[in-house]
Each structure stands twice: as structure tokens, then as C-alpha cells.
């Protein structure tokens, strides 16, 4: 093996990345240490150069802050008008992304990458606008200060004492195609500041004075330079990878960052990011939810959620593990994912508590072999300065849209304490009754029993109360000296202490068991919900079924109103055509749905795109193809954005996508089948017509030409014979053509039923009169009991059914054999049967007889096209009835059609 060969998988991934980049627009960031170094100026200069190269350059948005030199550079460049937003009376000028996308320049300039958009904009952040521009294939020039980089945000906050909230994920910086460092030594910057060439918002004057200290500026400059250098370094490494320059293959690093719910979490994530970038490693941020942690307040859980989202923005994969014990869960996960570095906070327990209760770090160190463990210390209290600043991110309150959880179970607790007192009293009463008969040690057991009972039912507080009360009362009542809290025998002290410890341990255990049971039941419920939905989805036969099932199940799980939107033929989202369900969301925003559908990303409330929308919009897909959009309006956003719930929702969406795709495939298959069937029919029609029309034509032409040729020479009987043959064959053709035309009309569905009330007897009479000649040699027995109701039917068509059945009977039974027409009343229907005494129907063909172009005996001389019975079936079916054939037990076949009577026959007014 040649060690110089690059790893093919890695190369492939690189090629894919490059391809994706090639389709996207190119991002160039003008990067500086602080405001005033001349980023905008440099950007405009570059833009003018491009313009001079005849490229289509558009200034999307540039802040000149009234500086003349900068303003001058704008001349000759096309500037996109800003979008004016009225926000609480103030006019805000924002970058107009829709206009930019519509205009589609080759290069667009959008200043201030870290800018936060006015409320009501499509994306909360400008970098997201730029992301969309790049996706659309437009090259973007933008400017950024180092302090706005997410991973440096924390450090710079420490250095400068000023923390900016407008941050840009590092991934945006890393994915930029080009970084141009705009550098200015601090002294010169300070001079420019004095000259008033640096834009300083008035109200922030004081803070910025503080900011623009020379020390700060040097530090910022260093950071900017270092950041640029590390990028260059990364490019160098990439280059070496491409050209297989590396001597030693880098092991694929995977770093696991473990966060808790404490203040260290955010620092851990940022540190992890730096480590991962430095090592060019994959990184995963994990949060282990233990039963204790599950009892945390909602705000704290939101804080964790926020940190996880931050990690995602910084490019990490995030997981939430649910386990009773953090250390073991981390080890298991690390093994599964081949993690070789774990970063976590320094243990918070110290001294004896750590020794007694253990710590996650200890568990990891003693169990995780081949894994390096990094500990991040928390800053000393004195160093930390304002500890609240550190907590800021966590304390920032609930996630947007998340509402506070209110219901506290105070009442139940209260009840627990009453029970604790009651149980102690009960124990005392029982103890008093048996006092003297039992040893004191056994009396203690009575109280212990009570404590265990309280601990199992009401948790820690009441059980501690019960044990303290128990100990007190026991001492008071049963330990000498009686009715005093003093203890004569010191050995009882141990009894008392043991009781207390047992109470606390048991209640703790019980509490854990209970919350684990809760976790388990949650999980079980989720599994059940998922199972129920997949079962229902599997049973769904139509797209509408799927949608209805999904909407209902989503409502059950997420307490949300939902609607599933599909695009029309032109790819535009439209409202569903069906009647809404009770659980349906009405008035979803189609433009948001359209954006989601086009970009295959979620949007709406609580997300990064169009957060102003009321609902949340998720795309769902099957095998890369976006099929539609789910709009979901939850009662409580937490129910959607909790990690486990989000996973559940993702699974839901996947299942919905699969179900829809399955049904579409099935429909496609059915359509294909129908087409094949139609094709087969057309072929049999052609062969049947060509055979059955040509045969009589041969006779007609032959006979007629014989007559014409031998004019006057043929003896009269022969002439008559030929003429009869012509007439017979022509009649045969005529009935054939009638059948074909009837079938065509029935098939086309163009038939209008002329339904009226008809006595069965009249229909039979008409048919028998019409068939008088054909049935002349047969006895036709009509069995028409009195009281047969009238039929509401198209008489001409029903007569046609009878005619076809009788003609068939005449055709396939020996001449002269009798026929029967039987009528009887069935349940809300009339049954008419044509029976014969012929050879019967070949076994197994009773159903096939009614298929088009089906004949029992092929090539039979008397055959028709095989349409007669198919016509019968079609006619009976349009009347809402059914028709079937079977052999009679006494020999012969019988064909029965049943016509429903779905309304009362008319009565004659007197």
C-alpha cells in the first residue's frame, strides 16, 4: 500500500464540497479587527475593479456613515434601494433580499455581515440573507469585524469588557471562499478616530471610548490576524491533502463536548469549537439528561436547549442522551461513535463530597481507555467579575415563543406532609398497643415501615418529615425516660440515626425510580405514538388518508393545529382542496410554505427564517425530493423544540414523506397497469373487429358479386339462397356494430340514464316481442309472481340486458331447448334471472364471462365479439346493481341481475 495515497472517501467528500461550492455563489469577506479600519472602503474598491472588468456589480447595502471618501467610491455603481420597514413608528432601512434575488447580479455587496435584521424580516440575521443569496448562485462581498465571530465572542468580551450580541457562526467565516484582511495599526486607527473618520453611534459613545483603548485594539488586531492566519493554515493543509504532501495520515478526530446545565456550558461549547477547529476534527456536543436533571426548572432546560442550538450554529452535531448516570452514558456513547477526546467541565463537587458521591470525571477516567479527557476549569470567583454576565446566555429567558410552565404540584406535596404526620400517628397508636410485648428494636421497624411507605408514595420531603417525626415520637413515647426527648441508653442514638439515613436513602431511591419510570413511560408513549401513526399511515390508501392521519396524530402528540400543503403542477404551494378537519390549521402562510418547499429548510416561529410567522413550517421529503410542507401551530413551542420532541417530529415527517411516496408509487403503478390493460383491450378489440367484421363482409361481398356476375343465369332458388346469406350476415354485422358502439358509449361514461318507473312485466314483454323471431323455436317460460315492484331504470337499457342474455342463451344452447325468465323480490331489490338448459358455463369462468372480448369457445361459428355480457355488466352497474352467472344444479346456466330499489315506487293519485 502506498501510504502517500489520499484517503478516497475524504477526497470524494472534498470533491462534493467543491461541487456544492461551485454551484453556490462565492463569498468574500473583508475582515477587520475593529470598526474604522476601512473594510467598507476596501470592499467598494474591489467592487469598482470588478465593475471595470465589466461584471454585473450591484451594491445591495453599504453603510458609508457619511464618509466622503467612501461615498465617492459609490459613484458609478448601481445601488439597490433599501427596504423601508416601519417598526414602532421608527423607519428602519433594511437590505431588500427579494429585490436582490429578482435582480440577480453577478456580484452583490452587502455590508455588515453580523447585522441583525429588523423584526418582520425574512431572516433574523443578515448572514442568513447572504446564505440565501449564495444558494441562489450570486457572489457576495461583505464585511465583518473579528469580535462578531461566534467562537471569539466570549474571549473578546473578556478582553474588551464589551460583549456584542450580534454574532456570526464560525461556519459562515470558514465556508467563505475568500477572506481579505483589512489591517490598520492601532495608532493609525486612533488617529482616524480622533479625526472623526470612524462612525460611532452617539449613545454608545462612552462604551466605545472604553472599547477603543490601545490595549484593546492591539488584542483585537492580534485576534484578527491569528484568525486569518489559521484560515490560511487550514487552506495550506487542504492544499497538501489534495496533493498528498502529508507524511503522516491524520487520524480522524472526534471530540465529544459534554455540557451540563450550569454556567460552564457555553464556555465549554466555545472551547470545544476552538479545539475542534484547531484539530480539524468532528465535534459532538452531548447533554445527558438524568432523572435529577429532568426535575430541573423549565427555564434551565430552555437554557440547555439554547446552548445546544448555539453548538449547532457553530457546526457541532448535538445529542441529548437520556440515562440514569452521566458517566456511563458518555462512555457508551463515546465507544459507539469512536470518540477519542472528551471535553468537560471541572467537577463541581470537591473534597469529601466528591470522594463520597463520586464525579463524572472519575467515572470517565477509570472507565474510558484510549480516550483523552480535557477538563475546562471555571474561572475563579474573583476573576469572573460579574458572574451574571457569564450566565447571560442561559438567563436570557425562555426561547422565543416558549411560554413558562406554570402548574406546580404544591397541592400534592401538601398532601404528602399530612400523610407523613398521619402515618407517624398510626405507627405510634399501633406501637402503643403492642408496647411491652415487643422488643424496642421491632417497634422501630413499625416507624421504618411508615417511612418507607411515605418515601415510596410522596418523595423526599414528606419522608424526611416522617422519619424525623418518627424518631422524635419514638424517643418521646417508648425510650426511657418516657415522655421526654432525652435518651437514657446511648445505643438508641444509633437506631435514630439509622432510621433517618434509611428514610433519606429510600426516598431518594424512590424519587429516582419514579422519575426514571416517568422517562421510560414518556419514551414508551413516544414509541406508542409513533407506532400508532405508522400503523395508520400504512393502512392509508389515498393521499388524503395520509394527510388526515398525519394531521390527527400530530395534533395528539404536539397539541398543535396542522395542515399539510402540497405544490400544484407548477410547483406553487396551494391550500388543500378538501374540507378541513377539526385539527386542521387554517390560514397557513403560503409564501412561507413556498420558501420552505423551495429551500428544503424549516421556517417560521422559533426558527431562523421568517420567525414572525405564526406557525412553524417543516418540509417533508422522500429520497431527496421535497414532497410538501407541514405547517404546525403548536400551543406551546417547547413541545416541538425539545430535542426528543424534535426527533419525534422528524420521524413523523419522514414517515409522512414515505407514506405519501408509497401512495404515489402505487398510483403510478396502477396507472401503468390501467394503461397496459387498455392497450390489451385495444389489441383484442382490433383483432375481434377485424375477424368478426371481415367474416360477414366476405360472405356479403361474395354472395352479392355472385349475383351480379351471373345475372339471370342462376336458378331462382340459388339466388334466394345468396340473398338470404347477404341479409343474415349483414344483420350479424349490424348487431356487432351496435354492441361495439354501445360499449364505447358506456365506457366513455357519456351515457345519460333516462330513469323512469317501469313494470317488470312490460320490459319482459317488449323484449319477447322483439325477439319473437329469434326465439320462435323455443319455449320461453316467464315466472312473474304477483307483487313484483316496478323498476326505476332506463327501460331501453334494461331491455338491452335482457336481449343480450336471451340471445346468448339462444346462441349457446341446443336449438329448441326451453328458456326461463324468473323474477323475484330480494331485499330492496328485484332479481331477474335468465336460465337455460344448455351445457352450462365452463368451471371457473363465471366471472371472466363478463370481461370484454371474452368468449368461452374461441373461433366458434356462432360467436359474437364477446361484448354482450360486458355491456350487460356495464348497464347493470350504472343502475347500481350487480350481475353474475352460475351453473344450475339441474343443469344449464343461469344469469342473474339484481337491480336495487332505493326509493319507494310512485303511487297514483286518485
Amino acid at each position, binding site marked *: 500500500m502506498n501510504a502517500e495515497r489520499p484517503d478516497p472517501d475524504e477526497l470524494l467528500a472534498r470533491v462534493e464540497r467543491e461541487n456544492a461550492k461551485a454551484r453556490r455563489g462565492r463569498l468574500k469577506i473583508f475582515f477587520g479587527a475593529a470598526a474604522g479600519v476601512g473594510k467598507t472602503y476596501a470592499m467598494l474598491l474591489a467592487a469598482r475593479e470588478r465593475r471595470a472588468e465589466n461584471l454585473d456589480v450591484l451594491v445591495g447595502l453599504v453603510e458609508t456613515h457619511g464618509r466622503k471618501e467612501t461615498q465617492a467610491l459609490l459613484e458609478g455603481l448601481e445601488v439597490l434601494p433599501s427596504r423601508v420597514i416601519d417598526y414602532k413608528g421608527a423607519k428602519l432601512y433594511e437590505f431588500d433580499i427579494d429585490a436582490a434575488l429578482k435582480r440577480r447580479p453577478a456580484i452583490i455587496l452587502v455590508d455588515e455581515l453580523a447585522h441583525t435584521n429588523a423584526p418582520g424580516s425574512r431572516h433574523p440575521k443578515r448572514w442568513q440573507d447572504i446564505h440565501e443569496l449564495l444558494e441562489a448562485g450570486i457572489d457576495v462581498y461583505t464585511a465583518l469585524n473579528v469580535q462578531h465571530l461566534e467562537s471569539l465572542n466570549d474571549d473578546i468580551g473578556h478582553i474588551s469588557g464589551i460583549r456584542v450580541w450580534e454574532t456570526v457562526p464560525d461556519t459562515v467565516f470558514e465556508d467563505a471562499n475568500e477572506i481579505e484582511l483589512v489591517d490598520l495599526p492601532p495608532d493609525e486607527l486612533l488617529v482616524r478616530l480622533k479625526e472623526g473618520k470612524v462612525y460611532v453611534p452617539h449613545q454608545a459613545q462612552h462604551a466605545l471610548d472604553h472599547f477603543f483603548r490601545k490595549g484593546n485594539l492591539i488584542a483585537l488586531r492580534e485576534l484578527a490576524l491569528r484568525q486569518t492566519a489559521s484560515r490560511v493554515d487550514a487552506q495550506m493543509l487542504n492544499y497538501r491533502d489534495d496533493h498528498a504532501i502529508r507524511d503522516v495520515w491524520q487520524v480522524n478526530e472526534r471530540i465529544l463536548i459534554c455540557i451540563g446545565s450550569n454556567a460552564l456550558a457555553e464556555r465549554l461549547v466555545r472551547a470545544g469549537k476552538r479545539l475542534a477547529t484547531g484539530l480539524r476534527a468532528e465535534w459532538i456536543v452531548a447533554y445527558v439528561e438524568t432523572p435529577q436533571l429532568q426535575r430541573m426548572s423549565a427555564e434551565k432546560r430552555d437554557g440547555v436547549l439554547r446552548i445546544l442550538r448555539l453548538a449547532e450554529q457553530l457546526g457541532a452535531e448535538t445529542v441529548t442522551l437520556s440515562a440514569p448516570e452521566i458517566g456511563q452514558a458518555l462512555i457508551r456513547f463515546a465507544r459507539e461513535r469512536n470518540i477519542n477526546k472528551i471535553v468537560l467541565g471541572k467537577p463541581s463537587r470537591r473534597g469529601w463530597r466528591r470522594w463520597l458521591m463520586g464525579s463524572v470525571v472519575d467515572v470517565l477516567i477509570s472507565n474510558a481507555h484510549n480516550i483523552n479527557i480535557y477538563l475546562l476549569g471555571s474561572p475563579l470567583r474573583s476573576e469572573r467579575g460579574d458572574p451574571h454576565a457569564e450566565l447571560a446566555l442561559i438567563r436570557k429567558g425562555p426561547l422565543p415563543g416558549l411560554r413558562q410552565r406554570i402548574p406546580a404540584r404544591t397541592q400534592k406535596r401538601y398532601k404528602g406532609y399530612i400523610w407523613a404526620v398521619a402515618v407517624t400517628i398510626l405507627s405510634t397508636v399501633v406501637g402503643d398497643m403492642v408496647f411491652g410485648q415487643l422488643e424496642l428494636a421491632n417497634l422501630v421497624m413499625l416507624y421504618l415501615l411508615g417511612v418507607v411507605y411515605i418515601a415510596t408514595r410522596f418523595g423526599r420531603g414528606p419522608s424526611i418529615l416522617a422519619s424525623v417525626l418518627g424518631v422524635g415520637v419514638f424517643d418521646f413515647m417508648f425510650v426511657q425516660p418516657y415522655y421526654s426527648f432525652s435518651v437514657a441508653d446511648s445505643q438508641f442514638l444509633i437506631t435514630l440515626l439509622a432510621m433517618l439515613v434509611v428514610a433519606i436513602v429510600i426516598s431518594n431511591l424512590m424519587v429516582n425510580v419514579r422519575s426514571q419510570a416517568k422517562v421510560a413511560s414518556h419514551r414508551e408513549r413516544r414509541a406508542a405514538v409513533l407506532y400508532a401513526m405508522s400503523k395508520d399511515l400504512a393502512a392509508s390508501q389515498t393521499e388524503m388518508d395520509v394527510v388526515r392521519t398525519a394531521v390527527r396524530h400530530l395534533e395528539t402528540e404536539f397539541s398543535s393545529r396542522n395542515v399539510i400543503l402540497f405544490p400544484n403542477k407548477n410547483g406553487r404551494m396551494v391550500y388543500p382542496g378538501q374540507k378541513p378537519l377539526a385539527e386542521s390549521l387554517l390560514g397557513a402562510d403560503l409564501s412561507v410554505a413556498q420558501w420552505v418547499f423551495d429551500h428544503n429548510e424549516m421556517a417560521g416561529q422559533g426558527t431562523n427564517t421568517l420567525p414572525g410567522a405564526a406557525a412553524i413550517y417543516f418540509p417533508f421529503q422522500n429520497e431527496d425530493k421535497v414532497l410538501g410542507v407541514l405547517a404546525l401551530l403548536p400551543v406551546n413551542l417547547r413541545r416541538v423544540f425539545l430535542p426528543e420532541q424534535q426527533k419525534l417530529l422528524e420521524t413523523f415527517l419522514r414517515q409522512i414523506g414515505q407514506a405519501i411516496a408509497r401512495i404515489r408509487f402505487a398510483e403510478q403503478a396502477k396507472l401503468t397497469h390501467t394503461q397496459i390493460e387498455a392497450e390489451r383491450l385495444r389489441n383484442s378489440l382490433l383483432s375481434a373487429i377485424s375477424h368478426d367484421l371481415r367474416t360477414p363482409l366476405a360472405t356479403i361481398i361474395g354472395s352479392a358479386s355472385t349475383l351480379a356476375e351471373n345475372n339471370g343465369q342462376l336458378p331462382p332458388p340459388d339466388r334466394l339462397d345468396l340473398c338470404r346469406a347477404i341479409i343474415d350476415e349483414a344483420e350479424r354485422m349490424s348487431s356487432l356494430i351496435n354492441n361495439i358502439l354501445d360499449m364505447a358509449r358506456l365506457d366513455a361514461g357519456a351515457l345519460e340514464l333516462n330513469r323512469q318507473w317501469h313494470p317488470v312485466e312490460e320490459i319482459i314483454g317488449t323484449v319477447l316481442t322483439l325477439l319473437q323471431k329469434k326465439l320462435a323455436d323455443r319455449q320461453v317460460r316467464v315466472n312473474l309472481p304477483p307483487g313484483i315492484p*316496478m323498476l326505476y331504470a332506463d327501460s331501453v337499457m334494461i331491455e338491452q340486458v335482457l336481449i343480450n342474455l336471451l340471445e346468448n342463451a339462444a346462441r349457446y344452447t341446443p336449438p329448441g331447448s326451453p328458456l326461463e325468465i324468473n323474477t323475484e323480490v330480494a331485499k330492496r331489490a328485484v332479481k331477474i334471472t335468465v336460465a337455460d338448459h344448455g351445457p352450462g358455463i365452463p368451471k371457473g369462468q363465471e366471472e371472466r364471462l363478463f370481461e370484454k372480448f371474452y368468449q368461452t369457445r374461441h373461433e366458434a361459428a356462432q360467436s359474437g365479439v364477446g361484448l354482450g355480457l360486458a355491456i350487460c355488466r356495464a348497464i347493470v352497474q350504472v343502475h347500481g346493481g350487480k350481475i353474475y352467472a352460475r351453473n344450475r344444479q339441474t343443469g344449464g346456466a343461469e344469469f342473474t341481475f339484481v337491480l336495487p330499489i332505493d326509493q319507494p315506487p310512485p303511487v297514483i293519485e286518485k
Partner: protein
Amino acid sequence: MSKNNPVIIVIEDDPPIRRFLRTGLSAQGFTVFEADTGKQGIVEAGVRKPDLVILDLGLPDMDGVEVIKAIRNWSTLPIIILSARSNDQSKIDALDVGADDYLTKPFSIGELLARIRVALRHRARPLEQLQNNVFTTANLKIDLTNRLVSLDNREIHLTPIQYRLLSVLVKHAGKVLTHQQILKEVWGPSYQENAHYLRIYMSQLRHKLEADPTQPQFLLTESGVGYRFKV
């Protein structure tokens, strides 16, 4: 133009059909005049003093119904219409405005001749079975003066409506009457929609007059069109 040589006008646009009608009818001793449009047909009917008109409903220049109406303006001569099979309604319309009989294409010359003979016989001697206002056919006797109906010389009791229905049919014996025509004559113009009345009474009549109501001898159903009293 003697009685032995009745004049028939054929209004039909299809030459082969005209040809076989001309041949077939001439061979049977009819004098045949042809017209290939409705207008010419109306003119011929006025000029030739025909005994009967054979009219195709599918003419290129005008609706056959209009032709019938035009002829009925001045004549009651029998009109037999020829219609395509799938066109029940135009057939009914034609009968409603006064056509006497119809034939559905394709038909044999034999069928046509039978219809022609019935129609001509009617025209020459309306209701030959009617003597002294008593109509007799086979074993059925209807005394229109005394309103008596007898079968095999046994009197049959009929309700007033049954009798009225029977008398209407008998008066036009041999001719096809549409549902509308019968309803109008028996029940009056406001009952035009109640075709089931007619069917129910017809069924009652058959039960009283026919040996086997499912194989009627007198009261025939013209499927989808109306009824005819067979003579």
C-alpha cells in the same frame, strides 16, 4: 295516379338508400319520387299529391321535425320516419308532431313494406275493424258507443281511465302513440310528466285483456317511445 299505383315520396339524402328504396318500392308497384333535402321534399309533397311520405330524420338542410310540421300544415297523409338507432328523442319528437310510424336503420324492405301497407290501409279505410262504432280484432270486441269491452264474448269490466286509455289506443290502432300523446289525451295536458301512470294502467289493461301479459297480442310496447295497438 290510380289507387293501384300509390305515390310515395322518399326524402333521404343518402343515394344508396334512395336507390334501394326506389327499386324495392317500384317493384311493389309504388310510384316513387325522390328528394335529397328537406326543402325539396316539402315541395315534392305539395306537388306530387303523394299517398305517403318516407322521411329520413337526418337531413343536411333542416330538421326532420320541421319537415313534418310543414307537411302537417296542410295534410294528414301518413309519414313514416327513418331514424338512426341512437336517436330516440328525435324519433319521439317526430312522432309527437304527427309522424305515423318509424323504422330504425338498418331495416329490411320487408319491414318497410309492412308499415307502408298498414299506413295506407288506414288512410284508405280508417279502422276497417270498426263497424257501427264497434271495434273487433281477434277475440276482442270494443263497443265504443256503449262503452262495452268483451273478450271471447265475456264482458270485461274496465275502470273509466282504463277504458279511456283503451279507446285512445284503439282509435289510433296500428299507429305508434308516444307517451306524451297518450297522456295528453287520457289525462290531459297537465299530466305530461307522469309516464308511470300510463305504464301502470297499461299493465292493468294487459292483465285484463291479454292471455299472457308478458307476450302481449294487442297492446304492444314501442321501447322507449310509446305504445301501439296491434291490428
